[in-house]
């Protein structure tokens, strides 16, 4: 008797979950439900616009009027457009010089920070500041620093150091404006590079340096044969990111020069914006934006091979 009464009571301890919870126990349903918000957002606002952008590049759409298919006309027009060629040249030049500057200075800063320093976390916080603050707002500060009349750099050069007699005209003519923008971009990019490379430096085992010291290596040899090769995988990833986001940069140029003087500092992104949104030529703007894609694919492949090299160095299989 006692056995029959206890058995159902024991069974009831585990409550049966509701039908909804049971549906979510089916793995495929759960997986789809979990992935749905992210995938839906990205499909609607990233994949679809990417395709739409490529489609628009082959039409003559303007604001408020859906366009006709015009084939390669937009691209043919661009190839004859000196402004587009100018933007291609400056985008490549800007990316090349700024990336080189960011990585040279960033690596130097990372090597400095890798020493035993007092107030390390405060120092790190200060150094990341240019990267945290909205780019446009620091760009406005640079705009003021580059002012033709009241530039603080001109003041230093003319009145304090006396190396020049006239104010420097930073943004008034083509080449000074180009170099000024590159300097601002390097200033903004150093922190990210330095902090990422510092993380890479800290993973290098000190015993490698000890072994090299015992073998009588010089400081340069230790950098060349230990630090640099060990840093290469991270360097490749950070560089890919940096190249992609420098090449497609918009904010800095738009805030400081808006592509001027006389369109000499247009990047592809600012040119696409100028033609597409205020100019209303959406088709042509999209064509300019699409012309950035081959470069980005190249940079992504660079990243892929950087990653592959890393696996090979660590002696891991391909997952």
């Amino acid at each position, binding site marked *: 008797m006692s056995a029959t009464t206890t058995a159902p009571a024991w069974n009831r301890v585990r409550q049966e979950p509701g039908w909804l919870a049971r549906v979510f126990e089916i793995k495929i349903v759960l997986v789809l439900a979990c992935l749905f918000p992210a995938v839906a957002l990205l499909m609607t606002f990233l994949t679809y616009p990417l395709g739409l952008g490529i489609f628009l590049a082959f039409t003559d759409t303007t604001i408020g009027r859906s366009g006709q298919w015009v084939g390669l006309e937009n691209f043919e027009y661009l190839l004859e457009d000196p402004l587009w060629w100018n933007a291609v040249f400056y985008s490549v030049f800007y990316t090349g010089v700024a990336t080189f500057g960011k990585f040279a200075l960033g690596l130097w800063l990372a090597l400095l920070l890798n020493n035993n320093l007092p107030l390390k976390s405060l120092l790190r916080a200060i150094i990341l500041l240019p990267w945290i603050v909205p780019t446009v707002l620091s760009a406005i500060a640079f705009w*003021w620093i580059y002012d033709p009349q009241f530039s603080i750099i001109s003041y230093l050069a003319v009145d304090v150091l006396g190396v020049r007699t006239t104010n420097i005209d930073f943004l008034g003519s083509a080449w000074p404006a180009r170099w000024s923008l590159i300097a601002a971009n390097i200033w903004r990019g150093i922190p990210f590079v330095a902090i990422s490379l510092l993380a890479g430096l800290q993973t290098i085992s000190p015993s490698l340096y000890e072994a090299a010291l015992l073998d009588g290596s010089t400081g340069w040899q230790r950098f060349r044969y230990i630090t640099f090769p060990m840093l290469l995988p991270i360097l490749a990833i950070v560089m890919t990111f940096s190249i992609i986001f420098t090449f497609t940069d918009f904010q800095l140029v738009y805030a400081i020069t808006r592509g001027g003087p006389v369109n000499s500092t247009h990047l592809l992104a600012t040119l696409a914006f100028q033609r597409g949104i205020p100019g209303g030529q959406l088709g042509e703007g999209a064509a300019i934006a699409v012309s950035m894609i081959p470069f980005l694919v190249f940079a992504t492949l660079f990243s892929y091979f950087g990653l592959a090299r890393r696996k090979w160095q660590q002696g891991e299989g391909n997952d």
Partner: protein
Amino acid sequence: MTDAAALPQQTNASTAQAETMAWDSRARRTVTLYVPLACFVLILLFPFYWMTITAFKPNAELFDYKTYNPFWIGSPTLDHIKHLLFNTAYPKWLLTTMTIAVCSTFLSLFASTLAAYAIQRLRFKGSQYVGLAIYLAYLVPPSILFIPLATMVYQLGLFDSPLALILVYPTFLVPFCTWLLIGYFKSIPYELEECALIDGATRLQILRQITLPLAVPGLISAGIFSFTLSWNEFIYSLAFIQSSEKKTVPVAILTELVSGDVYQWGALMAGSLLGSLPVAIFYSFFVDYYVSSLTGAVKE
């Protein structure tokens, strides 16, 4: 600096060898480490110093370097900030930006937590390809997307509405957060979930009661990233928002405060300073989370 470089050579000649070595290495350390480091910090901070100083200078000092020392403020004033807060729509812009940043941060945290959990913990077939696809989505820059997105936003009737920005910002926030959270979930021992499974918990219960509480630090750093990224966003907000009072701070300062040929540098700098402060303060509380997740994400 020249003194410090010359000194080691002089002391090398002296006879007190041990003392010289110590002195030599200290001088060397100063020249090769502290001097360059000081230069870096000086250059990285100078624009902010200049911004701050300009924001509090009266106009008379601002445009007269001959009588006043430009590196210091003679008589600090709050005029520019007063002008900004009471004569422009600045508080409104701040509020709009804050709302957009908070909403898009929560939206993307929700989406990316679920996605990261599915990819890292449910281990379905092809999960690593989904992860790779989301990673690749991060490499698609906004400069390519804003024109087609502008037409989409227009067709959806969301043009000139903050809702458009709240929906569009997750395109760059979700990939980043998912990527970061996948890394974080990896660091939580799987055994904990197995124990819960054996005890008869459902998958959703595990996510809510075990994994999420453990992932709070990861969620915080993903949240900070999202907040700063959406606060700083510029191109979408420039392209999709037309009316003055709905603009976000970075766009509004550039398009609304710059009027005519004479720039009001004081007000511009005050606006930039106030616009930078929320992110700077927010970030300074969580700098360690920020750095560790940044470097962790890079190392992944």
